[in-house]
């Protein structure tokens, strides 16, 4: 269980997270949604300890993550932009992360085969296309078996086949009872993968509940429509 308590973060004058409270339940796929700049990535980076919050705290299984590092053993993180050290080869990045994590990577060979990463296994990162890099990102995230997966815009740049494999991996982890956190702007993808939605608007929690509840509340049929409805309402109010 991930508990977010009073999380506040400002960058300069911009208040990105504003006293955010949220519980992310175990063994469930939770989608964090919201318009651009609503604080999704900042929230995720606070959970990972990459962003240091001004106020508030993140608790994982009852322990605060502030200043901690060992808890990241339990988290696999897929970053929004697949940036890797330019002059390292794919193989070297994979070896490096494995060596640092010191964890078994039981799913590595299978994912390498399915995504076709073997074709550019010995290429340097700077020579890979955006989609290839994203495949490496998928591999690095899913090769370990961890209780928590955090995926920030995982679909970006993936071809349809790779996207299918990504969905399979998420479904598989969901079935194994892992806690999965996803942000995405592709509502079809969210609808397919997530059971639960947390909707952020300007750094605050606007809605927290199941997909069905969200649709009921906005009186719409699809997730896309209800999200559009929420965004419209909020910006109409402003």
């Amino acid at each position, binding site marked *: 269980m991930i508990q977010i308590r009073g999380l506040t973060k400002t960058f300069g004058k911009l208040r990105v997270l504003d006293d955010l409270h949220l519980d992310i339940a175990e063994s469930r796929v939770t989608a964090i949604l919201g318009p651009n700049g609503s604080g999704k990535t900042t929230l995720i*980076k606070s959970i990972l300890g990459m*962003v*240091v919050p001004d106020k508030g705290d993140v608790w994982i299984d009852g322990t605060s993550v502030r200043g901690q590092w060992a808890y*990241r053993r339990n988290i696999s*993180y897929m970053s929004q932009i697949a*940036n890797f050290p330019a002059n390292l080869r794919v193989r070297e990045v994979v070896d*490096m992360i494995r060596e640092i994590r010191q964890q078994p990577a039981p799913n590595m060979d299978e994912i390498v085969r399915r995504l076709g990463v073997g074709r550019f296994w010995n290429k340097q990162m700077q020579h890979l296309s955006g989609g290839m890099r994203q495949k490496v990102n998928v591999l690095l995230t899913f090769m370990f078996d961890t209780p928590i997966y955090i995926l920030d815009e995982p679909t970006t740049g993936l071809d349809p086949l790779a996207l299918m494999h990504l969905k399979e991996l998420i479904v598989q982890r969901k079935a194994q009872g892992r806690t999965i956190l996803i942000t995405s702007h592709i509502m079809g993808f969210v609808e397919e993968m997530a059971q639960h939605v947390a909707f952020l608007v300007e750094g605050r929690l606007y809605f927290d509940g199941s997909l069905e509840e969200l649709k009921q509340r906005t009186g719409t049929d699809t997730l896309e429509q209800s999200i559009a409805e929420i965004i419209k309402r909020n910006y109409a109010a402003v």
Partner: protein
Amino acid sequence: MQLYKIVRYVIRDLLRSRWTYVYFAFYYLLGMVLLFINRDLSKAVITLMNIITILTPLIGTVFGVMYYYNSREFIQLLLAQPLRRDMLFSGQYIGVSLSLSLSLILGLGIPFSMYGVLYSGVIWDFAVLLVIGGFLTFIFVGLALVVALANDNRIKGFGYAIFLWLAFAVVYDGLFLLGLLYFRDYPLEKFALGGVLVNPIDLSRILILLKLDIAALMGFTGAVFKKVFGTSVGMIMAFGALLLWVWIPWQLMLWYARRKDF
């Protein structure tokens, strides 16, 4: 253990970088040229002193800033892993400083040992010179990382770092000298001593001059230093101050790193 791994990655990464070899080749050629021009080891060592106290800080500064801005992806990737932030940044610091120091030591060491420095009377002077070059590299890489961490904007970071080098290498001496001239009617020994301790480049110069036993050449501060401390105590003092100078930017860098958002 974590620290060792990071240092290894950084060094492996730098061994692939063209700049490590450019730096090595530069010192190699410099050593050759100095020996060729001076045709004498001890003269070459003295010339080298002036070059080392100015150039190693400059190269450490430029390289430190450049490395940080080029390794932001590496940092982001590793920050999401079970690693201590302190270890990650200390590892980068040590890795960069160590490989620059190695380029310096090998680049100058090879031509000078081919010229027979190992069996000459100036071997210890030469060794002290290299050790001080190493110290200055660590100090200025540390300062450069502090500046880079504090500035997300590359251009600004680069500018401030170069400015810092300029301040220590050139501006400081000018102001110091002006101060001494202006207040020459007062007893200035303590002021002069303090003034030397807060600039690692001056400190290194004095240390080398004490070792070469030509401290009087340095003029006022060198003479004061020698008079107050004598050669051996003076050297220990100066080395202690240099160690402190390595430690302070390092801790400052960690302080910034702990508070930074990535």
